[in-house]
């Protein structure tokens, strides 16, 4: 006989109560795991995209809503709204470099592909792109493509593609950089503007500054020359994360309520168990159990609920987020989560965190009942039928 065996026998003595209490904590932990695995997927994705942009400031048209700001990060096509004159004025400001983007969409074999109009030389320098095959030529008849697109559609330098009815030749393929930049077609800005008939407008401007400490100064200067909104990459990231956070907080509420309910479920189960077993507690004390032995016996018991419920919950949570991810992905704020790899299907970190949390919550739920248990006087417990 050992303490673990004794605890286990006590836990399973009331099968249905064991089952229901376990279910409660399992549901709570499952919702936590779902939240964490979806949430961390979202956040890593957004942070990754912010890094891809690589700019210190983002200049957007005034009055853009947060969704459009997210799209700057995600590479969705955007309305074009900043005129070339503004681009030039901003470029003229000393100490910063401006990179205008015209984000559009085209199709390759009926699949949508982002097409981005850029200033070729400036952008190449800014992004530190290297050419993998072919050469870097963007003009009225030539485009370059990311390695991802090349792989996906089996394209090589010299191949032709059609954009809005016009033929372009692929001059080169960029070296893989491991992010969204691999998944676009790059076109000379002026060509793209003509092709998409957007006049002299661009979607947004990424700005790199020489002196990062003067960033607030730059924001003022930019706003002085053009009627635009300027946000730093950090602000942008923050506001995007806030929006995603608000999507997540619904899930958080569910998880919190479920775990709170499970917490009180365990308290209740333990209180009932202690009432039922007050005589047995008396017996144990009489035959030599110290108060702290009784206390830890009950604490282990409730922690056990946490461990078992936690294991069931973690498995259920990952299974659920696997099936739920596509639906949540349809939410417009999280649209770019469509690609499966952004949702973590299994994470050792989340598993460990959730299990530890589950055991802690359950153990905490057991503290009060266990204290009540070791306060019982052995004599009173035994004396009467």
């Amino acid at each position, binding site marked *: 006989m050992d303490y673990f065996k004794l605890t286990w026998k006590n836990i399973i003595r009331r099968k249905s109560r064991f089952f229901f209490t376990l279910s409660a904590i399992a549901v709570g932990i499952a919702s936590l795991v779902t939240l964490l695995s979806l949430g961390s997927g979202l956040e890593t994705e957004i942070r990754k995209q912010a890094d891809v942009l690589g700019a210190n400031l983002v200049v957007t048209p005034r009055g853009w809503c947060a969704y459009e700001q997210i799209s700057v990060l995600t590479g969705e096509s955007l309305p074009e709204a900043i005129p070339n004159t503004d681009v030039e004025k901003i470029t003229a400001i000393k100490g910063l470099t401006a990179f205008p983007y015209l984000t559009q969409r085209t199709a390759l074999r009926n699949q949508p592909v982002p097409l981005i109009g850029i200033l070729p030389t400036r952008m190449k320098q800014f992004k530190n792109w290297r050419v993998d095959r072919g050469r870097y030529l963007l003009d009225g008849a030539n485009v370059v493509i990311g390695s991802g697109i090349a792989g996906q559609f089996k394209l090589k330098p010299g191949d032709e593609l059609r954009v809005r009815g016009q033929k372009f030749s692929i001059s080169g393929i960029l070296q893989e950089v491991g992010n969204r930049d691999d998944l676009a077609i790059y076109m000379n800005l002026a060509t793209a503007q003509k092709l998409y008939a957007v006049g002299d407008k661009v979607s947004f401007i990424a700005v790199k500054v020489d002196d990062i400490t003067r960033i607030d100064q730059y924001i003022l200067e930019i706003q002085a020359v053009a009627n635009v909104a300027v946000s730093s990459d950090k602000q942008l990231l923050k506001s995007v994360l806030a929006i995603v956070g608000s999507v997540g907080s619904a899930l958080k509420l569910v998880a919190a309520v479920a775990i709170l309910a499970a917490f009180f479920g365990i308290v209740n189960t333990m209180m009932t168990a202690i009432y039922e077993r007050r005589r047995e507690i008396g017996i*144990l004390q009489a*035959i030599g159990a110290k108060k702290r032995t009784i206390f830890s016996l009950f604490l282990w018991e409730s922690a056990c609920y946490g461990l078992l419920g936690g294991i069931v919950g973690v498995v259920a949570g990952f299974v659920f987020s696997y099936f739920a991810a596509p639906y949540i992905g349809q939410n417009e704020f999280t649209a770019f989560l469509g690609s499966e790899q952004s949702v973590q299907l299994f994470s050792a970190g989340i598993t460990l965190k959730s299990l530890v949390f589950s055991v802690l919550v359950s153990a905490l739920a057991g503290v009060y009942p266990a204290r009540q248990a070791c306060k019982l006087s052995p004599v009173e417990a035994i*004396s009467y039928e």
Partner: protein
Amino acid sequence: MNNAIIRSEKLTRIYDKGFRTLALQEVDLQIPRGSITCIMGPSGHGKSTLLHLLGGLDRPSSGKVFLDDIELTAITADRLAEIRSRKIGFVFQFFNLLPVLTALENVQVAMMLAGTGKKEQAERATELLKLVGLADKLQAKPNQLSGGQRQRVAIARALANDPEILLMDEPSGNLDSRSEEELLEQIGKVNERGKTVVIVTHSETVAAMAQQIVSIRDGRLVSGGANRAERPGGKSL
């Protein structure tokens, strides 16, 4: 150290639960080492209360209890638990066994609490259950045992840590006369091995094997520490 293994001085116990019950009043008592002592008296007059106090299971309202030279009434709850574990075996009046455990496991638990290794637990528990005639009931749960068998499991458990003292509260309460005889035989054997036995009982048969009879009326000793010769109708051993 004198011949008494347990000694009480002016032991008083008042229960105060809404109303006060003076369950035990200034009891001075000595339990001789290696003896069988019976505590007798009408129902509700304080026998169980006295037994619990002598075994360090309860604390008196006033007065002292000594076990050897240890003042039980002055030590911490943890020390008391240790002493209960190693030096004292209890058999209770009503409820003794943990219902989820088998007979064997019930005996083992007492050893587990004393820190005995698993292997030794199993060996010794089996041996003890054989001693009380339950070799074929090792794996039975308490609800599969008769009242007398349960009582015997409790005795086996009380002996698990080889205590010096065995305290029993109405061990033959629900037993027929044949089972009672068996029980007395067990107790006799235990006593022969040098253990001090204190039994609360209503049974004359049980009392007949005692060297000392303690009678209690209304929480007071009637013939405190009297030996059985002073008791009218007593038989000598």
